[in-house]
């Protein structure tokens, strides 16, 4: 089905907003797969280790598995502006019998909180995100470790973090440029909502445990090669993602599994079986 361009623009905006919310750049007790509104305190340094993976399959195509270890480094320039670098190492990317390993595409991000409302035990915030994915992953191996292209990331996240519960929503757009083999992967749009609740309320020096549930939507336009649209590309995915966050003083651990509940993919493509993420975070 061909969607008129004006609807694509609307979709792009909606997806962009949602995607921002989903992008993992936050520093507090919020989503695993989505974005989080808070920024880091001025002069603060954060280190994150994110072990993530996914599996996808389709009839007539070999299964695809991949596992990453992403090192995230972030720094609070001001209380409202946080800079971040994500350095991914592809531990294994396997398609059928072929696999590759190495450094993937590095992502540089800046997050700016332009609105904040503080209350006793709660904070509301609206944060914008801008970033770029660099073509640092090798494209000469099979399967490729990177796209060979620059991607531009924009997003917006709104959220409320209170003592008992947390709520956030974000949109994000990832605008792709032409990479290796004259392929331009379709622009990507993401939208997320996340809800978390603390079953037990502790104090600052107690472990802080939050049960999370997220709804993640991923939409992608068709990819092109030398300007020609590729039939087996693009589509929509919707995931439900149960997860958790555990914080102890300046240490954090969060994890979750994305379970696909709806997938509408163009042509013959691998559909997602699952995705997971386990993140350890330290603030200095």
């Amino acid at each position, binding site marked *: 089905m061909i969607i008129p361009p004006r609807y694509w623009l609307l979709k792009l905006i909606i997806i962009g907003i949602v995607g921002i919310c989903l992008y993992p750049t936050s520093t507090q007790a919020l989503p695993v797969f989505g974005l989080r509104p808070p920024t880091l305190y001025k002069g603060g340094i954060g280190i994150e280790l994110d072990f993530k993976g996914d599996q996808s399959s389709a009839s007539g195509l070999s299964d695809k598995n991949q596992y990453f270890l992403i090192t995230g480094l972030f720094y609070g320039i001001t209380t409202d502006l946080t800079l971040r670098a994500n350095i991914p190492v592809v531990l294994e990317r396997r398609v059928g019998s072929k696999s590759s390993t190495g450094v993937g595409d590095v992502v540089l991000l800046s997050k700016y909180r332009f609105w904040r409302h503080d209350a006793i*035990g709660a904070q509301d915030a609206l944060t914008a995100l801008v970033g770029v994915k660099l073509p640092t992953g090798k494209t000469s191996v099979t399967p490729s470790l990177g796209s060979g292209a620059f991607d531009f990331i924009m997003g917006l996240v709104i959220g409320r973090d209170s003592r008992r519960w947390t709520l956030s929503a974000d949109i994000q757009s990832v605008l792709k440029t032409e990479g290796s083999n004259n392929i331009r992967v379709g622009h990507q749009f993401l939208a997320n909502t996340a809800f978390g609740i603390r079953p037990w309320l502790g104090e600052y020096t107690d472990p802080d445990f939050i049960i999370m549930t997220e709804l993640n939507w991923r939409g992608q336009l068709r990819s092109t090669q030398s300007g020609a649209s590729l039939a087996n590309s693009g589509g929509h995915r919707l995931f439900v993602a149960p997860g958790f966050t555990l914080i102890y003083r300046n240490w954090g651990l969060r994890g979750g599994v994305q379970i696909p509940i709806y997938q509408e993919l163009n042509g013959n493509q691998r559909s997602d079986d699952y995705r997971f993420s386990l993140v350890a975070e330290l603030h200095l």
Partner: protein
Amino acid sequence: MRSKRLTWITVFVLAVLVSVTSSYARVPGVTMVIKGMSCPFCAFGLEKKLKKVEGVKSIKITLKTGKTVLSAEDGKSINVSQIPKAVKDAGFTIDSIEITAVGTIIIDDQKEMSLQVDGTSDTYRLTEVKNPVKKRLRSFAKSKTIVEVIGSIQKPGDSITSFTVLRVSEASA
């Protein structure tokens, strides 16, 4: 010979006075209510910033109420003027501050009352002073008695220049 003895007595008396006045902190404690904190990461960021405030020895943060208590190192004074920036840099808002300060009461030509914090150049204007506290402050000003004042500030801005007197008493050494 007599003048030499007098000099030594004066030096001794001054030394005793200095040791007595420096044996208590000029701003030994600050209690704040901070808005915006909801999780340990928030409290950690705030604690880190407040630790850099001159004179602060210990910090106790209660997430539920936002109550944050700063205590000074023995014989030292908390530099109150650094607190608003520290909280701002941590990304939170001060709802109220309660300060304990030791110093002398000064009354200027316009009959405005201030607290000159002992051993520092910090002076805080005392606002909304009503009787009988006003009467006691006048008496302390006249006798130049070193007093301990507990004052509060609601929604302070970037600098703290005045506070409302809650209690006043003669400072104990």
